[in-house]
């Protein structure tokens, strides 16, 4: 028996291999996600709010901006969630209130992911002085309380959704950059990076074509986690008056308009439902993140 047939025979048991092997791997991953309860429940919750953000006021039982004489009514059969001090239907306002936060927070997260990935790749891949310098700046940003920087910058820039996106996006660039840098450091030690260098590849190619696809999973997870925090940040800054302005039905705006009523009496419904809405959205996003994390970590 010759070496030739020897080795050729060796391939047979693997014969199940078909050209779309990569697709099968991807399908396996999707399959795993679809079996994950966390991921499914998270998506249902987030999907619910995305639906209402897109539908806006067109499907709500009442016009969320329409003022009626029925002010500060407790939840009842007409107004399930009650009415606020201007007689507006709180159920309609809660349903329609997702729009701003679901526009600003994802865009801010996207900005953070793009900038953070670029910085993380560069610092992680090159190391040395560039890494030292940039990483110290990143650490410095992380050390400052988010609200302090945001409020300062937004006061200077003026309030607009765009300003909110830029400020939150840039602040969140720091944690993303740190996560990506750590992941790149792990990949950089692998021999395929050296193999690429040994055939004369340049750094941008190695970073974007060789390393990036291998760290896509952790980046997606980081993005989802960061989205949860971004929702908090947008809500907080809007509450403080740096986001959308009245009479928008935005959740945190509702809370900021009505929280004084909590001290005046028992008008809890003016605040509670908007608060619950924010909470469910953040929990939903985090469930999605957990589901993704489990699959990516395997």
């Amino acid at each position, binding site marked *: *028996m010759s070496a030739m047939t020897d080795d050729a025979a060796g391939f047979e048991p693997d014969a199940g291999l078909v050209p779309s092997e990569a697709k099968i791997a991807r399908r396996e991953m999707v399959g795993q996600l679809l079996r994950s309860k966390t991921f499914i429940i998270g998506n249902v919750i987030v999907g619910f709010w995305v639906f209402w953000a897109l539908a806006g006021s067109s499907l709500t039982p009442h016009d969320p901006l329409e003022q009626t004489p029925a002010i500060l009514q407790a939840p009842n059969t007409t107004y399930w969630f009650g009415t606020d001090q201007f007689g507006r239907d709180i159920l309609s306002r809660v349903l329609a209130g997702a729009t701003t936060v679901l526009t600003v927070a994802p865009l801010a997260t996207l900005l953070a992911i793009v900038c953070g990935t670029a910085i993380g790749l560069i610092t992680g891949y090159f190391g040395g002085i560039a890494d030292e310098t940039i990483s110290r700046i990143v650490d410095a940003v992380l050390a400052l309380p988010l609200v302090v920087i945001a409020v300062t910058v937004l006061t200077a820039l003026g309030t607009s959704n765009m300003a909110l996106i830029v400020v939150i996006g840039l602040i969140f660039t720091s944690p993303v950059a740190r996560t990506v840098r750590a992941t790149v450091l792990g990949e950089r030690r692998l021999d395929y990076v050296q193999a690429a260098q040994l055939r004369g590849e340049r750094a941008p190619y190695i970073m974007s074509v060789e390393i990036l696809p291998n760290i896509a999973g952790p980046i997606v997870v980081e993005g989802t986690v960061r989205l949860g925090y971004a929702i908090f940040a947008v809500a907080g800054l809007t509450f403080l008056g740096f986001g959308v302005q009245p009479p928008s039905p935005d959740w945190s705006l509702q809370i900021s308009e009505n929280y004084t009523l909590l001290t005046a009496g028992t008008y809890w419904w003016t605040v509670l439902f908007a608060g619950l809405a924010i909470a469910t959205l953040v929990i939903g996003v985090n469930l999605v993140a957990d589901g993704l994390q489990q699959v990516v970590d395997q």
Partner: protein
Amino acid sequence: MTETVADRQHAPHALELEDLDVIYRVRGKDLQVIREVTLHVKRGEAYGLVGESGCGKSTIALAIVNYLPRNGRVRSGGIRIDGRDALTLSGRELRELRSNAVSMVYQNPGAALNPSIRVGKQVAEVFSIRGASDDEASDRAREALVRVQIADPASVMGRYPHQLSGGMQQRVVIAMALAVDPALLILDEPTTGLDATVEAEVLDLVAGLQAELHTSVLFISHNLGIIRKMCDRVGVLYAGSLVEEAETAEVLADPRHPYTVGLLRCVPRGGVRKDHGRLDTIPGFMPNVGEVLPGCVFAGRCTLAVERCRVEAPEAHQLGDSHVSRCHFHEQASTLPREMRADLALPAVDRTAEPLLRFDELGKVFKQQGHEVHALVGVSAAIWSGETLGLVGESGSGKTTLARSLLGIVAPTSGAVTLDGRELAATLKGRGSDDMRALQIVFQNPDSALNRRHSVGKIMRRSLKKLAGLTGSAARTRMLELMSSVRLAERYVSAPPGKLSGGLKQRVAIARAFAGDPKLVVCDEPTSALDVSVQAAILNLLVELQAEKRVSYLFISHDLGVVRYISDRIAVLYLGRLQEIGPADVVFEGPHHPYTEALLSAVPTIDGGGRDRIRLDGEIPSAADPPSGCVFHTRCPRKVGPICEEQEPPLVDVEQAHAMRCHIPLEELRRLQVKEPEAVA
């Protein structure tokens, strides 16, 4: 613990497995991984379980201690430890069994020890659990460490695991395992991550303790040499089935199963060299995990298999007292066709010509926490066109740093590398595409060397574009040529590396290295992550490529049999200094440098016999603080006197083409290292 040796001989077997079936449930399907394994370990006996990766060795170990992964379970059959049925125990009884009757030592001692608890406390814990007071536990921990020949137990006890070397860590783990005087000690590849000299010491220690304590041992290994050294009887496991079992010496001398025959043949031994012919391989792959095999489990790869083998499972044929083979044709097993053709026209190496690659006085200093670590010190050698220079040495000897300096991945601190008479730039940045094409590498671990997100085709085409300037259909043609020369079928073009076996991945890596017709390929332990049967195929491939393309190799390996097979000349590194360099046969046959001698004697071989083990004292010194004089003097068994501590011997030619760094004259070494005739396979 009060029982005597005599009592033990009348007691039940330490371990009995009876028709053991283990299954893993994967995606709703039951995959059978252990098929009706029956074996027993007698009292005081060392039983070796040998087989390649995926054969189920570790699964058996896990089943014995009832520690199978969540999706695994024993479907049928019995496990009795020390006469007790291990499968029907309650949680408490099981805990008791694990703490009293069975101990297990795993491959990676670093992972078996808790990194945040001092060693002394961890060892003492074993005794505290059994009711000893703190002081008593601590005293007994010290005794346990003394028992595993740790010279300075007090200081070791105060340290954290990461402050110990791998060999010391494994000693600590063994100390803990033996602390309870177990009825059965399971050792699962206990020395696989260790250097040859350290491995030898750990094996000596285990053998000594086993003889002293009459512990029953189940020794799991893929290395037949180690099994020969350590075990009284051996079972050969293939695809979850015990295909052969006998006294160790009998299996090695008279294997009666074609798989055992193949396994013994594919290991380069007995001084076989590439010009003697190809290595035998075992064709094909192990069946997929859980594959339904109605006939003999080995039929798919057996060149002797006939129709009967595929349909009828062979029973366990009893041959003599204790020899069992599951082969219908066990009496013909040794007639398995061989493959030792010497039809390769290996390039004739002309050493009067200018060498292909030369490195002069290469030095590399790393800065580590303010210390200077001399990874390489004045290393000079040359590699001629078409030859293989083998590079051996323990970890930390600078092998990899040397290879990476030549490739330009790390810049040497001093010295120069010349290729075809031209001095190369220190790093890749300064090297042109011709230089890059000329020097390539095959890494140790193909998993890490191939980008797991790129298909085989993408990996190959990119290399062809960068190294050979080929694109489009020219690249495709060349890619298929390269793939066929490493025996990779075309259908793998679109496969991601993750779907290939280790051997196939390594073929892709080799094909990639040859994309630009390199002049020198650095092979950095290219087969140490592979099973022996796959290793033989890869070594054959490398030799064929050398014959065909006149390529030179710098071949790094800790496996001396492999190095001897493939190398024309061999260089021995110790602490970053070249200790010896010369023709492979001369370096192996001696007289050789005392360090080379120690390395050679440390390796357990299948043939066995021949050499007495030369013990190396102590640990490899730190490269940050190398010994004065000859750097080897702290461990050298042939140290002659103060001169070794005071003066570093120069590297001088002791005979034709053979250079050595030792104060002892060659003739004296020849006299000391009286050669005993080596067994030839």
